[in-house]
């Protein structure tokens, strides 16, 4: 029972994709080699040293960012990861998350700043972000696979696209939410727009922007598993493998490692948003 009309959307997408992959082949190859290089380097940095050394470093970061409680919690958490034999996978996934987050933040924060400065940009960016965030994540994997071939790169690219939206939104929200009078004060004393952004808007919007970065990281982690489907390896690889083998034990072990990573990254980044400024309460 096919309807009388059929929009050939799928055909268009495929044609478009073919055109992209052929005409921009060099560009995609460049991205691919950059991402592979970054990933390999970071993965080596995390996986090459003995695991206890890496755990000590993580614990130190947690302690510095938040306090001794999180430091101790970090040691216990990562010890569990080692204990369930997911250390190497966890480091692979962490490397992927870090790369994807750095790229996503590098794109989304400036985009958010731009959107905050102009209603028109905001009106264009917003639906695109809605689209990117609500489109089922796995759909990105297919074109990413076509463009970047099997491996970790399509996983990273899909993760970036999926996780960018809250970065853009919360940056825009944060900057728009900065007390108008304070921004006016900047103008009134003859400050340039760039300087106002640097000295007033970004510092005051920082808690909100950091909440956005935190969300980007969380979404990246949730994509890690899905990225496993295209051969990104890491914890995702084991989850996908456990699914195909109906191996609940392995699935759970990989899953608990994801949870521990998530808690660690969330607490550390959340405390970056809060600390340092002595008080960001609005003058009133």
């Amino acid at each position, binding site marked *: 029972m096919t309807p009388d009309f059929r929009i050939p959307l799928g055909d268009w997408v495929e044609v478009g994709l073919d055109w992209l992959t052929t005409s921009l082949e060099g560009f995609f190859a460049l991205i691919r080699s950059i991402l592979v290089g970054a990933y390999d380097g970071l993965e080596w940095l995390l996986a090459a040293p003995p695991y206890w050394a890496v755990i000590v470093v993580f614990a130190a970061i947690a302690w510095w960012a938040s306090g001794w409680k999180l430091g101790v919690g970090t040691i216990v958490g990562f010890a569990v990861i080692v204990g369930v034999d997911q250390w190497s996978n966890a480091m692979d996934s962490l490397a992927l998350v870090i790369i994807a987050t750095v790229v996503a933040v590098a794109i989304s924060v400036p985009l958010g700043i731009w959107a905050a400065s102009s209603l028109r940009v905001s009106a264009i960016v917003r639906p695109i972000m809605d689209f990117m965030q609500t489109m089922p994540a796995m759909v990105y994997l297919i074109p990413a696979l076509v463009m970047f071939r099997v491996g970790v790169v399509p996983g990273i690219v899909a993760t970036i696209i999926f996780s960018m939206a809250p970065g853009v939104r919360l940056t825009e929200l944060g900057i728009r939410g900065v*007390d108008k*009078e*304070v921004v*006016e*004060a900047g*103008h*009134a*004393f*003859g*400050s*340039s727009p760039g*300087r106002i952004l640097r*000295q*007033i808007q970004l*510092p*005051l919007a920082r808690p909100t922007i950091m909440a956005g970065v935190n969300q980007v990281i969380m979404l990246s982690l949730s994509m890690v598993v899905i990225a496993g489907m295209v051969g990104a390896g890491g914890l995702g690889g084991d989850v996908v493998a456990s699914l195909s083998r109906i191996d609940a034990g392995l699935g759970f072990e990989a899953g608990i490692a994801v949870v521990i990573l998530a808690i660690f990254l969330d607490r550390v980044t959340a405390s970056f948003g809060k600390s340092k*400024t*002595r*008080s*960001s*309460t*609005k*003058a*009133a």
Partner: protein
Amino acid sequence: MSEATHNASHQESTTQDGTEAENALSVRNVYKVFGKRPAEVIKRLKSGKKRAELTALGTAAVIDASFDVKKGEIFVVMGLSGSGKSTLIRTLNGLWAPTQGSVVVGGTDISAISDKELRKVRQEKISMVFQHFALLPHRTVLENAAYALEIQGVAKAERTARAEKVLSMVGLGGWGEKYPSELSGGMQQRVGLARALCAETDILLMDEAFSALDPLIRREMQEQLVVLQAELGKTIVFITHDLNEAMFLGDRIAVMRDGEIVQIGTPDEILTNPANDYVAQFVQDVDRTRVLTAGVVMEPPLAVVTISGGPRNALRTMRDLQVSAAFVVDRRRKYQGIVRDRDVMAQVEKRATDLAAVVRNGIEPVSPETALNDLFGRAVESPIPLPVVDDDGRLVGALPRVTLLAALGNVPSTTGEFPVVEVAVAPIPEQMVTAALAQYEGVAK
């Protein structure tokens, strides 16, 4: 600039049309319209339409505003919320570009210059104090105070030194290392004021600067502002919705309503001669005692005797006016004191010709600039009207208690019906005075 110059500009402002050179700010036919079709709105406003009829096309926040602010003047723009005063003040430093009209700041038409030049004007000529202080919460008080200097590119050591100086000037010496959130509202606004003063611009815009403060703190800040202004000679444009504040601070006041300036004048003019019912209604609630001065409400002194006229003339004058006391002046009309009818009569009866012997100096004369507020206590204590003398010591008026009351009630202050010297002590009956005079005259003959 000295206090005297401040007062001088106060008086000139009503009579003299300022030339370009002595104006700090010049606003000509400024319109600011928000909305879809601003040009159309202005066109229709000019053809006589009301702003309320044009809301579909746009909102006219400021309609045809024109005024000059003289150097060293406190110019107050007063109006209720929605009257356009905040929009108007923002056109003065280009935070809003006027839809039409020109704003000239210190000789530069800021509606016709580039962004970069506009920033230069803001750095060098015109600074601003905000209603909610608008301090940078992530910076210390000192860094906030030095903010304008930082933008101007002043080296760190110098701007710290200058900011510390200004902070102690506004009474915040030693608070530099605190953060704004650790300060009370009044202190935060002192930081806001310090930041603006630190820029060393000639013009200071103050947007409802004291409205967010407690009444007591507000009063204190108002008084401090007047003192600072007298010391530094800044030109201040002050926005407020508080008429008492406007009257207290303003050398001149512009009253705004629905985007239009309905009256510009000195506090006295606004109070005693409101341009329309709206202004009249508005000034009804004002604390007149803070605004009106002795010079405005005083009555001509009728019971005046000259020292050279001698006791007989003095007694006759007092009898004719039915008063028990009179002011004594010398030939140049300089105030000498008062005389009582009983004392004068005693002199007459003694055949003495010297009036000076019975002149009393118990009542200190007041200056015409004194606010009524400061006169009530003295009027109560004084048995006779307060003498008003000018800077040269000449008697220019008298203030009976009833006049003070009339001024409070907004009854025309000079009715001519009040005896110029009211009597705390009843005058000596007329017949007795006449008899005394007759006796003297009889002897003289």
